[in-house]
């Protein structure tokens, strides 16, 4: 589904990703861990086409399309969704209007007519229930004045609405209380299918108790330096990253 080969990317002339490789197949869940500043969020930005980043080398294919040629909105409408590490507040744009526009743009992209008012309201209601999101939040402007946890829930709510093929969750667990973590993880699990896949970026093995990954990767200094199964996450939790750094630098 997603194939990343030797990806190099810069921001403001500084190289952050330094030859990253990753393959994701349908139905898989990949966890990416790694120290602060390693480039995890940069990877999500580059995959979703954030114009602040410049790809200098490498290729990314998504469902046999050259992803790097597509505009951010095209990538989104092809089915890539990013749950932002820091969701953006958009004062004056209501959640309802935002969501309806997004849904209809996706439908337009796929040659479908706009969603009817009743279907849209039903979808909103169902998905809100899925992530147990308060009604009052969807009556406000996008993320405006939402608490940290509410913003993360809102990301999963949007994901549920848009039903992506590939979802990238960038530290969706940070800032969530224990109940919210369970709710969000359940939401993610319910949306899982053999046809779609997830990349879950996290610092904590705890999330992986709920969302069980098929693979765990360590991203360090712009590269994936180690891959394994869910046991690797436990090992990292216990020993930290120093041994990985030593391994990498020792080479």
């Amino acid at each position, binding site marked *: 589904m997603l194939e990343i080969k030797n990806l190099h990317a810069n921001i403001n002339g500084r190289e952050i990703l330094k030859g990253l490789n990753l393959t994701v197949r349908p139905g898989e869940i990949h966890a990416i861990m790694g120290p602060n500043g390693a480039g995890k969020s940069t990877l999500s930005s580059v995959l*979703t*086409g*954030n*114009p*602040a980043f410049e790809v200098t080398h490498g290729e990314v294919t998504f469902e046999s399309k050259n992803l790097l040629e597509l*505009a*951010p*909105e095209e990538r*989104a*409408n092809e089915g890539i*969704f*990013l749950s*932002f590490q820091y*969701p*953006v*507040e*958009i*004062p*004056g*744009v209501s959640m309802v*209007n*935002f969501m309806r*526009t*997004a849904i209809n*743009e*996706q439908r337009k*992209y796929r040659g479908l007519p706009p969603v009817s008012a009743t279907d849209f309201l039903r979808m909103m209601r169902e998905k809100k229930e899925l992530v147990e999101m308060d009604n009052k939040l969807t009556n406000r*402007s*996008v993320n405006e004045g939402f608490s940290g946890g509410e913003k993360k829930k809102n990301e999963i709510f*949007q994901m549920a609405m*848009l039903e992506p093929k590939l979802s990238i969750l960038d530290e969706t667990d940070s800032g969530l209380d224990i109940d919210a973590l369970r709710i969000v993880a359940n939401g993610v699990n319910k949306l899982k299918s053999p046809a779609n896949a997830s990349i879950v970026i996290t610092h904590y093995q705890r999330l992986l108790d709920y969302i069980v990954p098929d693979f765990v990767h360590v991203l360090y200094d712009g590269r994936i330096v180690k891959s394994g199964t869910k046991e690797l996450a436990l090992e990292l939790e216990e020993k930290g990253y120093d041994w990985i750094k030593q391994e990498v630098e020792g080479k």
Partner: protein
Amino acid sequence: MERQYIDLYKSYSEIIKNNAAQAMNAGRDASFALFDKIGFPTTNLENYKYTDLKEVLAIDFGLNIQRLPIPVNPYEVFQCDVPGIHSFLYFVVNDAFYPVSDKRNDALPEGVIIGSVSDVAKSHPELVEKYFGKLSSTKQDGLVAFNGAFAQDGFFMYVPKNVQLDRPVQLINIMRSDVDFMANSHNLIVLEAGAKAQLLVCDHTVDNVRFLTNRVTEVFVGENAIYEHYKLENTHTKTTNLSTLLIDQQASSQVLSNVITLHNGLTRNTIEIDINGEHCETTLAGMVIGDKNQQVDNFTSILHNKPNCSSRELFKYVLDDFSKGAFTGKLYVARDAQKTAAFQTNKNILLQRSAKMRTKPQLEIYADDVKCSHGATIGQLDESALFYMRQRGIPEKEAKLLLMFAFTADVIDFIRIDALKDRMKLLVEKRLRGELSKCEGCVICQ
């Protein structure tokens, strides 16, 4: 530039006077003398730094000092494009009040007088004489002086004590001419104590010639009265729209002015509020959506002469292409105007480097127990918000539109006529989309 008008006045002042209301002639020679002395404003003047009239004033505009009738029936060419507004509807064609023929206007409450200044000067001379020119004659302003010399008529509205108009009054200014044309009109609005009125002024142009309008509006807002003044400009690029709104506020009165420029050529809105009683509330809001070579200068001045009053200002501009915007927020708080609360905000988005915005807060505060603040920003659309929306599949163009629309939303919220508010949302959205910027109701425009 002034020469031709000075000569015109000297040769034809009798014709001007004979075709104008008596009450309007009282100060005419004095206005002319002032204009003769100071001329049209130039960019050398601090208050006109950002409105350059040189080019426009070089044009040879026609004037209609003989008051020849204009062959147009506005009721036929203009259907109100604010559905459900149920307004009392009046027209001024160029500078002449058009005879009222709308049945709906029969429902005006007793004692309310709406008509042309010259008609009312005949039927109720004492009313017009008491107020006319009382604010404008104190101004040392070339445009106001010119208006005083040449304006022969205008719109008049009087709302007696404790009468509250439950429907808005709508004044449509239509410019109609086969040659480049200038219109001067002088409006007078009087609200007695406890009265309430909402006035919506719409500026439209009908013919593809160059227009210059120079309108002065004096408003007297009595104690406890509530006055709302909405000005919507939707004219063409060959229009120069100069307007001066002078408001006198008595104790415990409330004033709201919201001036929205969607489409224009060169516009200067001067809004001066004189607060002359305690416990007044004043709100000045405005919005500009500009592209191509549009120019809009909103010059506001609020004089807090008495204690315990509050004022707030919110002006927002979205400027594209080579458009130019200017905002001045002059705030004066007199020595004994204690407990004044005054807040001023001007926010601007420049969509292109070629667009220009000038913003100038001008605070003079002589009282010590006051709460005053001002803030101005000039920026671009929020890149991170844009990316966030695009990540949800919303194309860049649409995402920008949503952000711009959101940006202007709080100015639209300062509209207290629901039908107008809904209509304005639609017009602003259409304007931002670059679709039809003229009103749909205007048959001639289409």
